[in-house]
């Protein structure tokens, strides 16, 4: 029995990576759920909004770096975030004005809006690639590690190393701050309350004098902010590649639906549920079991439920199970 080593291995390969991935998914799912709650359609362009926001933030980061601005040991990208959010907000407001408003005026079915958002997705994807290119970009210039595996091994004398990247901590801390700010906004400000009223009952909200265009605009701005922050955190933690954000769309939607579409609290819970399932189902527990078992014993098999190639299948499976048995999600959202 070697509980300490088992715990460290589990922390290093499951808990820490899944927590930061979960925070990134939660932020993405919040944006999706907000748009679903207020504008009443599933926004497929959200992944590419994230990519665009991150791309602009990277351009801002390069600009700051060229001017010699730095907030070391934190990455410069955090400083460029407001710029990225502003540009992305302008883009989505422009898209709303040019595309979505037409269908909203006609009171089109949600499914038509979903199809429209697929079209918007492809165009945004193209714009992003056009602006920043298709190559992989590393833009994290801060301190890389809070705890590096080597230093941890030397300090503790354990066989297992523990590494904690600064980007992982930044991700979780930023996510907590953003979620707190969002809930404060929705619950305590006049605009936030009018958004919730609009979400609960559109006709009643219109009768009580709430300006629908204003609510829609604020929703888009917040969604753009959430998308840019989530995308930038993901890019900082991993690396930026325009196409990868398109692949993130599935786990993000799974997170939003599992939590309950339209329910912000559910989006956060869903993000972490999806992240932890993806990581733990594909993790091979051989070493951990070896530490927990009797001395010198190692299981023969890898103790891995699914090969890592099938990571995305996990989100799919959870999505289908939830839709079958609890279509409104775990936190009482709207049914799809």
């Amino acid at each position, binding site marked *: 029995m070697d509980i300490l080593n088992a715990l460290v*291995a589990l922390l*290093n*390969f*499951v808990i820490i*990576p899944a927590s930061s*991935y979960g925070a990134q998914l939660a932020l993405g799912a919040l944006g999706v759920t907000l748009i679903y709650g207020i504008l009443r359609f599933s926004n497929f362009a959200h992944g590419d909004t994230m990519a665009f926001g991150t791309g602009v933030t990277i351009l801002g980061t390069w600009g700051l770096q060229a001017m010699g601005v730095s907030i070391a040991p934190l990455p410069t990208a955090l400083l460029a975030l407001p710029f990225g959010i502003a540009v992305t907000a302008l883009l989505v407001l422009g898209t709303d004005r040019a595309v979505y408003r037409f269908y909203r005026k006609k009171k089109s079915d949600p499914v038509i809006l979903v199809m429209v958002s697929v079209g918007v997705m492809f165009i945004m994807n193209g714009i992003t690639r056009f602006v920043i290119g298709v190559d992989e970009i590393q833009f994290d210039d801060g301190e*890389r*590690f809070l705890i*590096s*595996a*080597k230093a*941890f*091994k030397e300090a503790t004398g354990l066989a297992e*190393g*523990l*590494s904690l*990247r600064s980007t992982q901590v930044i991700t979780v801390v930023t996510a907590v701050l953003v979620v707190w700010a969002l809930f404060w906004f929705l619950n305590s400000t006049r605009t936030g309350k009018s958004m919730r009223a609009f979400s609960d009952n559109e006709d009643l909200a219109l009768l009580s004098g709430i300006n629908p265009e204003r609510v829609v605009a604020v929703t888009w701005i917040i969604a753009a902010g959430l998308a840019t922050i989530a995308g930038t955190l*993901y*890019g900082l933690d*991993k*690396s*930026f*590649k325009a*196409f*990868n954000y398109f*692949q993130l769309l599935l786990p993000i939607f799974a997170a939003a639906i599992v939590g309950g579409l339209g329910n912000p609290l559910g989006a956060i819970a869903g993000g972490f549920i999806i992240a932890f399932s*993806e*990581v733990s189902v*594909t*993790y*091979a*527990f*051989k*070493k*951990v079991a070896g530490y927990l078992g009797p001395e010198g014993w190692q299981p023969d098999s*890898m*103790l*891995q439920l699914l*090969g*890592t*190639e099938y*990571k995305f299948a996990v989100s799919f499976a959870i999505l289908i199970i939830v839709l079958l048995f609890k279509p409104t999600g775990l936190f009482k959202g709207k049914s799809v």
Partner: protein
Amino acid sequence: MKKLLLATAASALIAGAAQAEEIKLGISLGFTGPLETMAGPMALGAELAMKEVSDSGLLLDGSTIVPVRSDSTCVDSAAATAGVERLITTEKVKAIVGGMCSGEATASLQNVAMPNGIVMISPSATSPALSSLEDNGLFFRTSPSDARQGEVMADIILEKGIKSVAVTYTNNDYGKGLADSFEAAFKAKGGTVTVNAAHDDGKADYSAEVGALAAAGGDALVVAGYVDQGGSGIVRGAIDSGAFETFVFPDGMVGSALVEKFGAEIDGSFGQNPASGDEGRDIFLKLAEAAGFDGTSAYSAEAYDAAALMMLAMQAAGTSDAAVWKDKVMDVANAPGEKIQPGELAKALEIIKAGGDVDYVGGAAVELIGSGESAGSFREVAIEGGELKVIGYR
């Protein structure tokens, strides 16, 4: 137009006067697709050899060689087969330099080249499966099989005193072929492979893959992938999480991009890739430079050798009929005989004409073994102080 007509008439006259034929040779490479950057220098390498022979005027009483290109796409077997079909039935080529990738090469060989009795010499298809393929003696390659690289890699690792390794490979035919042949060789020599798992290219995050590899353990991690793709992602993840400290890099991982990305972080790691340390390579590089292309590009020298072997075999058989000269390919490639370096094709043609024997060495130290594939020489490298150092050749 007038000039063109004149030129055509003139060349027709000359050709007629010399009583020699115009031999067409096909070049079927992936000019579009995932290896498109390599295809250009490869085709130029093959065409360089053809031009050298044409200019010498010594092949089969002054025959000239005309290259015809076709796009094999590397990934689309149907497109490659259609291209080779066109080369053989419409262009009437006598032999084909290609295909480029193992899957596409197999398809075009079996569907078109074999029924028509046309020889294919591939400069770059390295799948072990091609060694045992029934080919009627029509298929050769100037690059070594990955089975051979698996053996060499296993030797290098064991010589470093490492007995247990984890293996990850890029999720395609090439990656799997190399990983499997390495695993077989390493086990046969007494080593242990803890896990042999695939990774997909083009992902942002490889922490799950690295986690599984780390759980299996091992003293080193063999990364059979691409340096511009998932291979580097795996290495980055493994370094960050402290899962592995020593890496083994075959083939496509060995490149300047590797040390640019990781520098001193991968000190103590090592690897190997197919490359010849002979003087032939230097000669070929100079020829390529004079012809205006980059001879160091992968498999460019092998393409030159493929074309050269075809023409020397024709000369040895005294005919451009593939059914006859296919049996001469092994003769001109191997000892005994005078060693032939790149740029000495004219000399080789003369020796053969005079009844002598040649041993073609070329730009990639060609020595055909087994069913007609290069024995291959490998360059062993190590990363020391953040730089790629050549240890030797084997």
